[in-house]
């Protein structure tokens, strides 16, 4: 593979690749995303390899490990082409049967098909699975077709066509205009119009400018940036090159959290492969435009997702934010104009340039165009990554795509925006999801974490959880953020441990106000949101903890009481064995002795819940 020195050479190379691929040839794709990793997709891949080696017809079948398919709850996922048969929860033992029956003979293996939870109907094709049906995977969709470590796969689905168009058929200002027309808003949390940002950076004085990709994805529960960077790194890279050309930058950085080693590896491979082909580096595609990218790893600090802290980190400093009276597009990295965008934002760029802003703006709402990838997790049946058009309602996401709440439990709230966001109660489920609507109800889009909570989630505990996270992650510079998050956490701890008073709720609101108003950066600025939104919609739950010292969701340990129902107790003794503090006494019933029902000594009980887990007879009650 030599350097490609013109768009014509690029297209010729693409045709060559496509001609070598027979779409009718059977192809087994296995999802290699991190979720499936944890479910053991490696062993499935190895099993397939073995089967194919041993089988006479193994040669004629392709095997590809692809990027994340998104339906993480049902992994390992296998899709058989060309029929597009969708298998879920595949085990290594299934490999032989899949090969012989489905690949060679076209027969379906019922037990591996997705079954509709309501109708029980077996669904064979990926696009008909309810999880995927309402999605619109214009950004994420290619993950399932490409091996992220092979640039040819990206080229085969049309990759870098947008880049050629941008470099040879458009001028920088035209590109900016197109992105502005598309109304692309930042997907990292701020929702700022990307095109406007690019224009400000382009117009800022200075020859040397930088573009940065923010892959620090610190929101706990959000992993879409990870899956994009791991599963389709070229889509992000292509977006950055187009953006750099539009802005007039020749040097870029991808800042990845170091907790994502596979993402670091795959973007590194993508960069090298793109360079080899002349799609990155000097004289890209013979256009005369130079641009190259370095990968920078995070050090384990949530605050480094904030743009000025991120840049400080790249410069070799601690991730302490600075005041943004002068924006980073004017003075950023090394005091030079810098344009920072999120992974998903960059990945939207090639799509917009390739298909045009007119096409793009057909999707979404008036002020929020395009799609958003959410990580739908928590108390929901179909956990995974979903890409939906802006404007779809929360109800559709949770029920139609997510398949509702497991165990028939009642939906209580959906938390969006990570630690900067808030909880949206069940009564607002018909809210269309877009930037402004979410902010109106006291939450925000954030990076796309969407955590479903049911009746067994304690909202005070959720607020405490986020405050604990934020007080640890605060850089500590500002009194208001450092002390504010600390004291809010302290108050919430008091409430969850039975020491709360009604004045504490007012104090929390006041503390929340000053933390948000007086702090330097958005970490402090949005820190109170989880607390304020739970007080707004779930004030009664706070009151229950305070006035009745009771946790209705049965989560706050100090307020729980474990009791053994003596009528139900079979005197097997498992609970006493499991108890780490020797709080359970009784006598085991055997053939030789009568047995005495077991009892918990409340003084010694540390409320760890081990007895509850150990009892097989539902004899232990929690209240």
């Amino acid at each position, binding site marked *: 593979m030599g350097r490609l020195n013109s768009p014509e050479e690029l297209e010729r190379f693409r045709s060559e690749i496509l001609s070598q691929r027979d779409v009718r040839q059977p192809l087994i794709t296995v999802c290699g995303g991190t979720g499936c990793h944890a479910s053991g997709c490696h062993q499935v891949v190895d099993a397939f390899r073995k089967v194919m080696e041993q089988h006479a017809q193994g040669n004629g079948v392709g095997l590809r490990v692809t990027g994340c398919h998104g339906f993480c709850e049902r992994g390992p996922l296998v899709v058989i082409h060309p029929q597009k048969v969708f298998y879920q929860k595949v085990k290594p033992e299934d490999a032989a049967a899949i090969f012989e029956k489905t690949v060679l003979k076209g027969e379906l293996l019922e037990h591996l098909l997705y079954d509709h939870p309501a109708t029980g109907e077996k669904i064979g094709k990926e696009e008909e699975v309810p999880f995927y049906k309402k999605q619109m995977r214009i950004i994420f969709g290619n993950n399932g077709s490409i091996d992220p470590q092979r640039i040819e796969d990206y080229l085969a689905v049309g990759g870098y066509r947008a880049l050629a168009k941008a470099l040879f058929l458009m001028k920088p200002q035209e590109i900016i205009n197109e992105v502005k027309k598309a109304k692309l808003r930042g997907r990292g949390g701020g929702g700022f119009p990307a095109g406007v940002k690019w224009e400000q950076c382009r117009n800022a004085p200075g020859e040397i400018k930088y573009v940065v990709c923010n892959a620090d994805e610190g929101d706990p529960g959000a992993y879409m940036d990870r899956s994009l960077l791991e599963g389709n790194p070229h889509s992000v890279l292509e977006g950055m090159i187009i953006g750099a050309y539009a802005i007039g930058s020749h040097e870029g950085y991808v800042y990845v959290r170091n907790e994502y080693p596979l993402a670091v590896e795959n973007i590194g491979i993508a960069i090298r492969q793109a360079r080899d082909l002349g799609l990155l580096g000097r004289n890209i595609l013979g256009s005369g435009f130079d641009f190259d990218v370095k990968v920078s790893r995070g050090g384990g600090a949530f605050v480094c997702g904030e743009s000025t802290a991120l840049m400080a980190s790249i410069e070799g400093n601690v991730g302490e934010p600075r005041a943004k009276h*002068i924006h980073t597009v004017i003075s950023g990295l090394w005091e030079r104009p810098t344009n920072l965008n999120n992974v998903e934002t960059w990945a939207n760029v090639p799509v917009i340039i390739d298909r045009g802003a007119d096409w793009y703006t057909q999707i979404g709402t008036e002020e929020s165009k395009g799609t958003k990838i959410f990580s739908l997790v928590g108390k929901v049946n179909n956990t995974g990554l979903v890409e939906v058009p802006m404007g779809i309602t929360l109800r559709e996401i949770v029920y139609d795509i997510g398949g509702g709440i497991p165990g028939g439990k009642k939906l209580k709230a959906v938390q969006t925006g990570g630690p900067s966001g808030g909880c949206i109660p069940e009564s607002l489920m018909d809210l269309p999801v877009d930037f402004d609507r979410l902010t109106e109800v006291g939450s925000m889009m954030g990076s796309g974490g969407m955590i479903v909570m049911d009746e067994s989630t304690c909202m005070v505990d959720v607020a405490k959880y986020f405050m604990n996270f934020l007080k640890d992650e605060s850089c*500590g510079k500002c009194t208001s953020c450092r002390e504010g998050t600390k004291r809010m956490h*302290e108050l919430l701890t008091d409430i969850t441990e039975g020491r709360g008073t009604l004045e504490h709720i007012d104090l929390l609101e006041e503390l929340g106000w000053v933390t948000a*108003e007086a702090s330097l950066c958005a970490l402090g600025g949005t820190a109170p949101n989880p607390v304020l939104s739970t007080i707004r919609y779930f004030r009664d739950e706070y009151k229950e903890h305070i006035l009745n010292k009771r946790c209705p969701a049965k989560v706050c340990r100090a307020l729980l009481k474990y009791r053994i129902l003596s009528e139900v107790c079979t005197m097997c003794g498992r609970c006493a064995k499991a108890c780490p503090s020797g709080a359970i006494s009784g006598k085991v019933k055997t053939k030789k002795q009568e047995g005495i029902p077991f009892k918990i000594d409340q003084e010694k009980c540390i409320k760890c819940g081990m007895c509850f887990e150990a009892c097989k007879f539902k004899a232990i009650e929690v209240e």
Partner: protein
Amino acid sequence: MISFMMDGQPVEGKEGGNLLEVALDAGIEIPHLCYHESVKPYGACRLCLVEVFRNGRSRMTTACTYPVQNGIEVHTGTEKVLRARRMIMELILAMCPGDKKIQQMAQEMGIEEVRFKKEEKDCILCGLCARVCDEVVGAHAIQFASRGDRREVTPPFGEEAKNCIACGACVLVCPVDVIGMKEEGDERTIVRWKRTLKMKQCKVCGNYFAPWFQVEKFREKAGLPKDFFDVCYSCRG
């Protein structure tokens, strides 16, 4: 010079200046702890909050970090500002209830009670000591370490500050006077950084006037002869 309004009166500041220094020059009192004219503004204590009105919009920001601009209207004592300042002062008092200066400032602001569990810290984390040591003195002996509620100013590894030249600048600049300097016989100690240095004696008057370590560093840096500091500054006339 850049002109704008502050609390209803016209004020002026030079290019690149900040609102706090303009206020102090104009005799407008804005409480502050982490600001000092010898070092770059930092914006850590958040006490010097003011409201800045510009283009019909207002925002609350720290005066020490906001650059002077033509046409802005600054208000240093609005209800919003006072409410925020009081809360911040209360938080600092809860953190360092024993500091006399903090008690005094809190009293002046009318803070009667502290609604949080009092801690027993003494350092208010303004960072002036570290910033002076880095930016003015250039000894780089102490800095912030850790983050969040574990943030502290410390010599590396919490040990004796091996780069400290015991100049005493940090002691001078600390708003709550918690660093401390002692001189006993021929030794000077910067208490908080556990740094004790032997002092050099003047050949003429016999006084201990500067730490050996310090003068040796100066000699090295400036390439001065060996006997340059044998006579103290006073005796040199």
